[in-house]
């Protein structure tokens, strides 16, 4: 597509069952009742001049440019605030209106610099457009009077500037920050001529303000006042391609606005059904890593990890790799080989990696990083409901009356969805937060959780069972729903279990660390407050009872009848962009695509006939089992696409030992990541900007990823996998990822109706897409559960074996923050580091005082697995006895301290509970120093002066 601004209908869409027909300049139009005259006019293809209105903000009515005349109505009402009425006759262009509008425009322009030709928004400025639209030719008031032209710009934000001299005080930015983002960072200070936009009362710049750099205000600004720095540097975009963010599981879609091969800016796509035109700082601005100087663009090999890397041609790298794979298979057997599918790569790429492992290596030893995040979701929801996925779309939140958020911090982890939740909460929905930390959602502008239950880490199952106890014993269960939709005998067995006194809030309160009355109150609110929706994240799954917690959540939704319609449901907030997709694609060692067990002969037969090879009927190794088998000397080679298991997986020392014991570690990535320190082959990867494919977000929404520039390394990732497959003897001939999707659709019933033509036409599709749901499935289990009857599973609370004691008296829990992403490989290579240059440890004032610590001090964080050092922040966000950190920076290596305990059903690591001790420290630990030295040695490249990447 060439460059056109996104359509703006002036005011938001209205939902109504009643339709109204009116006439705009004689053109008939029928719209939902409540629609404004401005929007109705835009829908007829006309456009009424406007400045303060835009269609993702509530109408404001301040600029008076959008005046119209309406038959039978006195005066000239503002079209943006006037709703249409049946039979209404509207005139948008009359001499009277023209004169009035010109007068308004003249006032604006008289206080605006007339440097249009040299302005970076030239030809992309609504003020300029509207001046032309109203036919303004001259301005009667000169610049001699008082004006704002000399005001200094604020350039503190790394991605956008604020130039107040160009501001027309339309307050679109303020409203965008309030209504769309929910941060309320901006205000209009002063009155009349003195009024101006300001980033809060307590700060003097955007960077030091509450602003989280989501970009909503920049997008809303009709002038060059708030504008991306890149537009100033590169120039106005000349084409736009719609694609999908590669960071988190929200799956925001963007218009990559390009000039030549350069991205000028990523602008949230208003038609995107996941984000509805909003974004966060990562997707909107943090894409500069794609061009980062540390990207490795040529393949490299080495015989052993103490040698420097040797740059080689693709042919040499691939033939070396194939020789090694064949050698290892001949010597140790096919089960000495394996692979890891990335949750960041596309569905098509993931599908090919697991196909290579199953069909080429001849083993089911394939796993995905979902192992360490949402594998319990897959297990738990499949067991209870029959489908390994969330039940709702994001729009559903608009109809929720009570939200229960457990083990998730959407403000930081899923920011765009958090904004949508907050909007609903500001409209009056109730909120229950179950989290050891006082997350932002607990108290943010105009939002206060009705209940915050700050439980002790590791007691999720206990608290959920206690909630169920209250619901069942107080007669609040939705018996009609349960009788109709669930297995009644299983329900009774479960109800008897939860009703036992030992599962009452009073009995469990000392274990959970939360007042019993608060648990009772939350249970009553959830059961009786209307549509109840549960949202959860890794604070649920990354525990020794992660799967039990997911099933306990499913039980809670079923017992209250909160499944199968808008506003309710069980909603896992997925971490990485394509966790859902990676799981769907058969990346788990026991399942083929569409969650079908490898032991199922009919499913295997389908794949065997398509691929022409036998499929092993036995499950393969999971990532932790691969590492164990490696240290046992039985697992020797691994192909890792787009993952950094050394940094992201628990018990770093064990991961390092496992990798060191292998004979051929193949890392396919953008950068020499930490895992690559143990690699023998490095295959350069491509970014999401450089490839075609699809991602599937947390709503099961399959969305296109489109190539906006050529891959710097020469190949899209699926092409590299295909070349590797050919090198080991497979006859693959895909010419485009759409052909891979066609194969997925042939082999996977839930994807049967998915193809690129339909994705292009619809923008996105939510699986299942098949004969019964040809247009996809925004909400699941509407008429019945996928498995037939919903299954109540007894979830007995089994305390984790990770216990505090005299040596390790505190509980460490981990999480993430807004500006950084996962192991930080991408975000650390962008200007986002201004917000978070290092991982810090949050510690409660009492615990800090006992140790003589203050904010900014270096501390040693030690567990039975290992120790590391980082700086402390003293805060009462965490409860006494609990400390918290993130794992975005390799220098910290927070996973040196996490243990090898894991979820009983899936082996998802117990990241969220580690017994630790904190003591003052002077600097890096011995492990950190050794590690740094090893990493530096390992990153040497023969014949270059390349400095270490970190």
């Amino acid at each position: 597509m060439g460059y056109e601004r996104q359509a703006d209908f002036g005011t938001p869409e209205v939902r109504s069952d009643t339709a109204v027909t009116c006439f705009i300049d004689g053109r008939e139009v029928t719209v939902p009742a409540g629609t404004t005259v401005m929007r109705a006019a835009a829908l007829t293809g006309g456009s009424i001049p406007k400045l303060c209105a835009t269609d993702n903000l509530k109408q404001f009515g301040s600029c008076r440019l959008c005046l119209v005349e309406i038959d039978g109505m006195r005066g000239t009402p503002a079209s943006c605030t006037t709703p249409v009425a049946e039979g209404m006759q509207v005139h948008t262009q009359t001499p009277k209106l023209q004169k009035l509008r010109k007068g308004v425009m003249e006032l604006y322009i008289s206080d605006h610099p007339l440097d249009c030709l040299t302005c970076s928004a030239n030809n992309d400025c609504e003020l300029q457009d509207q001046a032309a639209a109203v036919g303004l030719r001259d301005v009667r008031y000169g610049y001699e009077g008082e004006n704002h032209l000399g005001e200094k710009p604020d350039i503190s934000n790394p991605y956008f500037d604020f130039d107040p001299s160009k501001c027309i005080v339309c307050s679109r930015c303020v409203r965008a920050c309030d209504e769309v983002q929910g941060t309320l960072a901006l205000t209009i200070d002063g009155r009349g001529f003195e009024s101006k936009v300001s980033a809060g009362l307590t700060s003097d710049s955007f960077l030091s303000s509450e602003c989280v750099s989501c970009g909503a205000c920049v997008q809303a600004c009709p002038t060059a006042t708030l504008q991306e720095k890149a537009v100033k540097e590169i120039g106005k975009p000349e084409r736009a391609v719609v694609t999908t963010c590669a960071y988190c599981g929200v799956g925001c879609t963007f218009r990559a606005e390009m000039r030549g091969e350069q991205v000028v800016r990523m602008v949230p796509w208003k038609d995107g059904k996941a984000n509805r035109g909003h974004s966060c700082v990562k997707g909107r601005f943090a894409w500069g890593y794609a061009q980062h100087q540390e990207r490795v663009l040529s393949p490299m090999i080495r015989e052993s990890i103490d040698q420097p890397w040797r740059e080689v041609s693709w042919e040499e790298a691939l033939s070396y790799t194939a020789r090694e794979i064949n050698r290892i298979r001949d010597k140790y057997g096919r089960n000495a080989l394996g692979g890891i599918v990335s949750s960041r790569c596309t569905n098509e790429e993931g599908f090919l990696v697991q196909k290579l492992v199953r069909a080429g290596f001849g083993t089911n030893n394939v796993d995905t990083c979902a192992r360490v995040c949402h594998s319990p979701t897959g297990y738990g929801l499949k067991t209870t409901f029959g489908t390994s996925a969330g039940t709702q779309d994001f729009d559903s939140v608009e109809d929720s009356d009570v939200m229960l958020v457990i083990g998730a911090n959407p403000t930081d982890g899923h920011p765009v969805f958090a904004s949508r939740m907050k909007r609903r909460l500001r409209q009056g929905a109730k909120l229950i937060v179950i989290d050891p930390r006082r997350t932002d959602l607990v108290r943010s502008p105009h939002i206060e959780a009705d209940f915050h239950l700050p439980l002790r880490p590791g007691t999720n199952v206990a608290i959920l069972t206690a909630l169920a106890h209250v619901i069942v014993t107080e007669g609040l269960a939705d018996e009609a729903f349960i009788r109709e939709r669930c297995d009644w005998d299983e329900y009774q067995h479960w109800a008897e279990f939860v009703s036992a006194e030992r599962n009452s809030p009073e009995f469990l309160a000392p274990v959970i660390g939360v007042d019993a009355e608060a648990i009772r109150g939350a249970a009553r609110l959830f059961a009786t407050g209307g549509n109840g929706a549960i949202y959860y994240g890794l604070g649920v799954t990354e525990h020794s009872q992660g799967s039990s917690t997911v099933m306990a959540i499913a039980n809670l939704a079923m017992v209250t009848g909160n499944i199968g319609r808008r506003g309710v449901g069980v909603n896992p907030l997925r971490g990485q962009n394509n966790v859902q997709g990676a799981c769907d694609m058969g990346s788990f060692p026991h399942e083929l695509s569409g969650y079908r067990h490898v032991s199922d002969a009919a499913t295997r037969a389908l794949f065997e006939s398509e691929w022409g090879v036998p499929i092993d009927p036995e499950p393969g190794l999971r990532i932790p089992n691969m590492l164990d088998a490696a240290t046992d000397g039985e697992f020797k080679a691994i192909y890792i696409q787009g993952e950094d298991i050394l940094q992201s997986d628990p018990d770093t020392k064990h991961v390092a030992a496992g990798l060191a014991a292998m004979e051929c570690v193949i890392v396919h990535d953008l950068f020499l990541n930490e895992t690559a320190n143990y690699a023998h082959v490095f295959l350069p990867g491509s970014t999401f900007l450089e490839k075609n494919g699809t991602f599937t977000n947390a709503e099961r929404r399959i969305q296109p990823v489109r190539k906006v520039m050529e891959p710097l390394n020469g190949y899209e990732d699926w092409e590299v996998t295909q070349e590797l497959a050919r090198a080991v003897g497979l006859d693959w001939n895909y010419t485009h990822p759409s052909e891979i999707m066609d194969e997925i659709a042939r082999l996977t019933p839930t994807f049967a109706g998915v193809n690129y033509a339909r994705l292009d036409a619809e923008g996105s599709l939510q699986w299942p897409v098949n004969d019964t749901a040809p247009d996809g499935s925004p909400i699941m289990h509407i008429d019945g559960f996928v498995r037939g009857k919903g299954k109540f599973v007894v979830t007995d609370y089994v305390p984790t074996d990770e216990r505090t004691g005299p040596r390790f008296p505190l509980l460490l829990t981990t999480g993430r923050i807004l500006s950084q992403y996962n192991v930080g490989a991408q975000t650390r290579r962008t200007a986002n580091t201004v917000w978070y240059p290092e991982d810090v440890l949050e510690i409660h004032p009492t615990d800090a005082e006992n140790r003589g610590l203050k904010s900014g001090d270096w501390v040693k964080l030690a567990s039975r697995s290992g120790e590391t050092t980082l700086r402390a922040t003293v805060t009462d966000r965490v409860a006494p006895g609990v400390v918290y950190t993130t794992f975005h920076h390799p220098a910290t290596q927070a996973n040196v301290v996490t243990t090898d305990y894991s979820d009983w059903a899936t082996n998802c690591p117990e990241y969220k509970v580690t017994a630790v001790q904190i003591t003052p420290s002077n600097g890096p630990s011995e492990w950190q120093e050794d590690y740094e030295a090893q990493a530096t040695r390992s990153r040497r490249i023969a014949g270059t002066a390349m400095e270490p990447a970190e």
Partner: protein
Amino acid sequence: MSGHTADKLTYMANQIARNMGHDEAPVASVADHIVAFWTPRMIGMLLAEQGAGLDPIAADAMTRIAAGRIPPPQTRATDPAVHGSDAG
């Protein structure tokens, strides 16, 4: 064969048994779970421990798995004669 890995597998089996203890037929549930998610090699390693360190439900589940194992899967999964050529 590593004692460390065998210890881990024992721990895992006990953990599964503790979490499935309330199922209507816990032994069958635990056995099914292990067969569904463990590789034949892992099952073989734990069987070789002959129940040492296993809780009763886990031990019974392993006995049940041993009784139903025909033929031993670790050979089946690794035998090229059964599963065709290497490259496929």
